[in-house]
């Protein structure tokens, strides 16, 4: 029972800290939660992914009402992307659960793949640039027909900024891939969707981040059912994680103007790098370590 209470309290404190520092570092909660808990906890990866997808869902849901009401995210832009990403997210979560349950060493394949994916995440974070107000020169036909545009009041400029989105035909297949990865590993995958929304679809960075959160809320809600129905959502993991993440995100929103994001960002990237190495190591030992 001591073990039980230790993990309940630990998960609450851990997700509380992630809830504070992950948004300040510019990454989502899921991408920090899943690899670190996989590396350091005794839980099977099925339950970690089940909770990871719910952590991503709740942290997205806590910000969505505010950003949507401010015009920073809209169903207009998100709906076509969500239609594609939902299908692949369901396939991804079913595939992930199948691999870890059907193959004798399936969970180690997932852990190894998660470690490799984390290196890719770190590369994307390090290499992708962010354009505050991208210039959209040409609008593709589908985006024009769907009238993918909006506006929001930007306090730093003291004016209403209008934006348009483009290249939907390029973005759709990319979001198909993102949906699969998100479902399979129990991540929100904002690290992948923000650069595509910003650099490919031409959305201003603030709109891209908010749109990504709205998309994650829909996408994760589709992927989560596979985990819920398969019993991959245990009370001991889900309750402290969701409550910790919700409280942490609230504090993060207050702290965002008072701290130096660069230092925190470097610290989070460092921790994720260690988690990536540990997951690759754990996966290899599980598969080839003679166990």
């Amino acid at each position: 029972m001591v073990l039980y209470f230790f993990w309940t309290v630990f998960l609450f404190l851990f997700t509380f800290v992630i809830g504070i520092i992950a948004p300040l570092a510019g990454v989502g909660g899921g991408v920090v939660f899943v690899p670190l808990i996989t590396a350091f906890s005794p839980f099977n990866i099925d339950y970690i992914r089940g909770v990871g997808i719910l952590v991503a869902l709740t942290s997205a849901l806590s910000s969505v009402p505010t950003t949507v009401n401010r015009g920073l995210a809209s169903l207009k832009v998100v709906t076509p992307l969500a239609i594609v990403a939902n299908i692949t997210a369901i396939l991804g979560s079913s595939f992930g659960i199948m691999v870890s349950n059907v193959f004798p060493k399936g969970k180690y394949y997932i852990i190894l793949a998660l470690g490799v994916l984390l290196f890719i995440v770190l590369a994307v974070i390090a290499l992708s640039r962010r354009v505050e107000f991208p210039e959209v020169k040409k609008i593709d036909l589908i985006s024009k027909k769907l009238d993918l545009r909006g506006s929001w009041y930007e306090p730093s400029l003291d004016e209403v900024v209008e934006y348009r989105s483009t290249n939907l035909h390029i973005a759709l297949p990319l979001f198909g891939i993102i949906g699969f990865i998100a479902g399979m590993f129990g991540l929100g995958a904002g690290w992948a969707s923000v650069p595509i929304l910003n650099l490919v679809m031409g959305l201003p960075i603030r709109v891209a981040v908010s749109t990504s959160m709205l998309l994650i809320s829909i996408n994760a809600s589709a992927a989560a059912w596979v985990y819920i129905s398969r019993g991959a959502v245990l009370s001991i993991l889900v309750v402290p994680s969701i409550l910790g993440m919700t409280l942490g995100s609230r504090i993060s929103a207050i702290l965002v103007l008072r701290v130096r994001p660069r230092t925190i960002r470097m610290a989070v990237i460092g921790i994720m790098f260690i988690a990536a190495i540990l997951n690759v190591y754990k996966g290899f030992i599980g598969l080839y370590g003679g166990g």
Partner: protein
Amino acid sequence: MAKVEEMDSLFARIVKLSYYAGLVLMFISAVLYFIGINQSLSPHIIIERWGESTTIFWKDIDNLLNYKYLKNLQYSDSVILLAVTLITLTPLAGIILAISRAKLVYKILLLILVLELIIAVLQPLYFKI
């Protein structure tokens, strides 16, 4: 001021309501669960099996599998899962209500999205892994 579409503001309102309702329900049922009232799955079993895959974990117990927790709401951990269900259904509820305020092309796209989300809820019951 920025112009926010009617479908978006309605969606945001529903999300806020449903999400907070889910959180409150989760908090109350979690307090009951963690002080040991009406647990369907004892902490001892969880500790014994939390390293196993879901197939092995639920081999001889299935009272929470495949949404069966909805039929066992006398247990505090079933109510926790009901709260999780409510939170997970939040975007779907918001989208369903937003359809009424959407333009025709978005009515169609949102209907497709609703259909997908309903399939997502039901598919684990029909496609067993």
